[in-house]
């Protein structure tokens, strides 16, 4: 189980965060504190600001107002404590770069600009590739991989960075069931080592199985808590509006059934039974 050395300090603390790209804010007055060592899912419809929240926690987008603190320190001052796995669609897969070079990027943060990458950095990158079973592809250009393999390369980059906090933007989108399982394994292993993870997720049906805590987002934060608290039919129909019915039709389950399923015994994934 995760160590409880720093229970007092949340891993990520977001206070009254508002971010906008134009006249309409993408995030409005979002406040939350994510405890260390938790696997947290972010759910919400398309365009609800999930990626924006991730980018704000990484310090890439500047808030209009509000603050983000990483392990108690202002995000602008922390460097490299947060690793990032981008959304597949936002990566240029034709970029002239190999699998190994991407993994090596995980080590960039540990070097000043005049320092060269050391043997040790290469070794760490290679080990991370081994962990996600991508070693044999290390010389491939990243466009010449399957969707699941591409996802694993960026997982390796995050592992090589050895950060305490991992942010993943839709890692399960468009991967096959086997890869989904493999990624989930890496995540639960990382949690056992006490890492904090925030994962953008699109599938409500699995959201209740995978995560310790859920954030329900649509510009504002609608709910933050255990899956049981967040996946309330009323809340969800507020946030997803008409789209929920489509979702029900697609999965052939009613929302109640899905929620029921999430609570079934025997679906434990290492969570403590309290």
């Amino acid at each position, binding site marked *: 189980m995760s160590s409880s050395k720093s229970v007092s300090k949340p891993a990520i603390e977001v206070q009254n965060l508002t971010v906008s790209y134009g006249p309409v804010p993408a995030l409005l007055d979002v406040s939350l504190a994510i405890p260390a060592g938790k696997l947290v899912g972010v759910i919400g419809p398309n365009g609800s600001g999930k990626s924006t929240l991730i980018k704000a926690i*990484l310090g890439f987008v500047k808030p209009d107002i509000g603050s983000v603190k990483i392990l108690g320190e202002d995000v602008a001052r922390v460097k490299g404590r947060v690793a*990032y796995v981008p959304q597949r669609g936002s*990566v240029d897969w034709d*970029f*002239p*770069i190999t699998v190994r070079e991407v993994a090596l*990027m995980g080590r960039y943060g540990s070097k000043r600009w005049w320092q060269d990458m050391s043997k040790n950095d290469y070794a760490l990158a290679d080990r991370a590739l081994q962990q996600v079973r991508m070693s044999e592809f290390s010389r491939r250009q990243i466009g010449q991989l399957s969707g699941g393999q591409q996802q694993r390369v960026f997982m390796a*980059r995050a592992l090589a*960075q050895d950060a305490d906090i991992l942010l993943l933007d839709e890692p399960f989108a468009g991967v096959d069931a086997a890869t989904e399982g493999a990624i989930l394994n890496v995540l639960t292993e990382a949690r056992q080592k006490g890492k904090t993870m925030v994962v953008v997720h699109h599938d409500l049906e699995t959201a209740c199985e995978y995560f310790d805590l859920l954030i329900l987002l649509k510009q504002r934060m609608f709910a933050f808590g255990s899956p049981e608290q967040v996946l309330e039919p009323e809340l969800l129909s507020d946030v997803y509006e008409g789209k929920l019915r489509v979702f029900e039709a697609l999965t052939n389950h009613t929302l109640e059934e899905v929620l029921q399923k999430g609570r079934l015994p025997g679906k434990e994934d290492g969570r403590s039974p309290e």
Partner: protein
Amino acid sequence: MDWLTEFHLANGHLIKPLVVGTLVSLACSVVGCFIILRRLSFLSDAIAHAMLAGVVGGYLLMKLLFGTEAHVGAMLLGALLAGVVTVGMVGFVTRVSRVKQDTAIGIMYTGIFALGAFAISMKSLGQYIHIDIYHFIVGSVISVGNSELWIAGLVTAFIVAVVMMFFRQLQLTSFDPVMAASIGVPVVAVDYLLTACTSLVVVSGVRIAGVILVVALVITPAASAYLLFDRLNRMIVAAAAIGIGCFWAGFFLAHAAGASPGPSIVITGTGFFLATLVFAPKYGLLVDWNRRRRAVPQEIKEDVLGAILRSEQEWVPINDVVRHIASNKPKIRRAIIHLIRQDLLDQKGTELRLTSQGRREGRRLLRAHRIWETYLDRMGTPANELHGQAHKLEHMNDEQTIDYLDDKLGHPLKDPHGSTIPEDFVDFEELSEVRSSLLREGFRAEIVRVEDVTLQDRLRPGAKVLGGPRSADGIRWSLITEDGATVELSHDQADAVFVHRVESEPA
């Protein structure tokens, strides 16, 4: 040393242009790599077009304020300023109006270029300005002087130093700016640095190729290198080499033809790019075409597996296989080699056998074929067309497609010719959870959950059941419980009972 002296005597006037051209081509190509990866070609174009106005502005300012003639520094600064204003205006127009970027670019470039041309052509101002418009447009590398030599040297040294020192930062901000920001790389500062580099190389490149063509010096060699290499550091070195090579080739081509070097350099660059496009070893059209020609169509491989499976012998002579397939022999042979390499076939002498994996794949295809046949039959396709049509359609055999058809057809057991359709063994793996409508007669399974309340008293999670026969033309299912009772189910009810298989072979 003799030939060198001789060359110097005969061609001494060429040495300065060649040195300047080599340096500038190198700097342009190196920066070009980042320009094309960040999709910023328009930036170099904007700066080039704005130069005329900038140079004229700088010229006039110095002349009118200080009474000095053409001052290189002022002209450079004017060009940079004008470039930045153009890029800013493009962004501004795109942001505040519904006009899209490509249109905004077209408007602003031409506008700012026209402003410069207007000032020069004016009688009152034009008398102060001694700029050769022709050379400004097509370049004038032949007449470079010492100051240009110095500028080219400094610019190139600066560019090479920046790229070598900040390679990681430039690479990461181009590839993943979000991560770059998170590890403390000053993303915005790097962007400005790159814009500054672009301005520098464009302004020095104009002397060689002119305002209209200078973009080609920046992006064409980089694009050729992009097609040739899979790693950024190699791409940069290659771009520099290609840029320099094209400069020399174009320069001497012009010399031989008695033409202006600017256009000729760009022509060689474009020619080289087109050649790369066709002949590049990995991303070239030729390789692509060859690969497609040599690729074994999936259909033929599927036909081979199907032919062996249908023959119902263990070892099948290759000639028999070939006879059953409507395709040319070499293609079938290549398909067979591929299948052996994929571990789907074994070969002994002139005979072939399915491996267990190959048998599985063959059965999956047979299932797809027979389900398509059943589907076509239900649609009212004439019996004599069934096989042919299904043979075409069976190559759409991904699991989702076949599962959809199977469910829609009510999980048929036999095809229209009366042959058994293999069961859905892909989904129906041991321990994976499926709907009981997939359970064939004689298969054992354990109930996982029952979503139909009317059945919950008779079928309980954890109970073992045996698949019973279908009745009423296959539209009623039956499950036999451990105490021997038979539970009859409709299709929907069978779909509501989730089971997992407990034995791999029917009891």
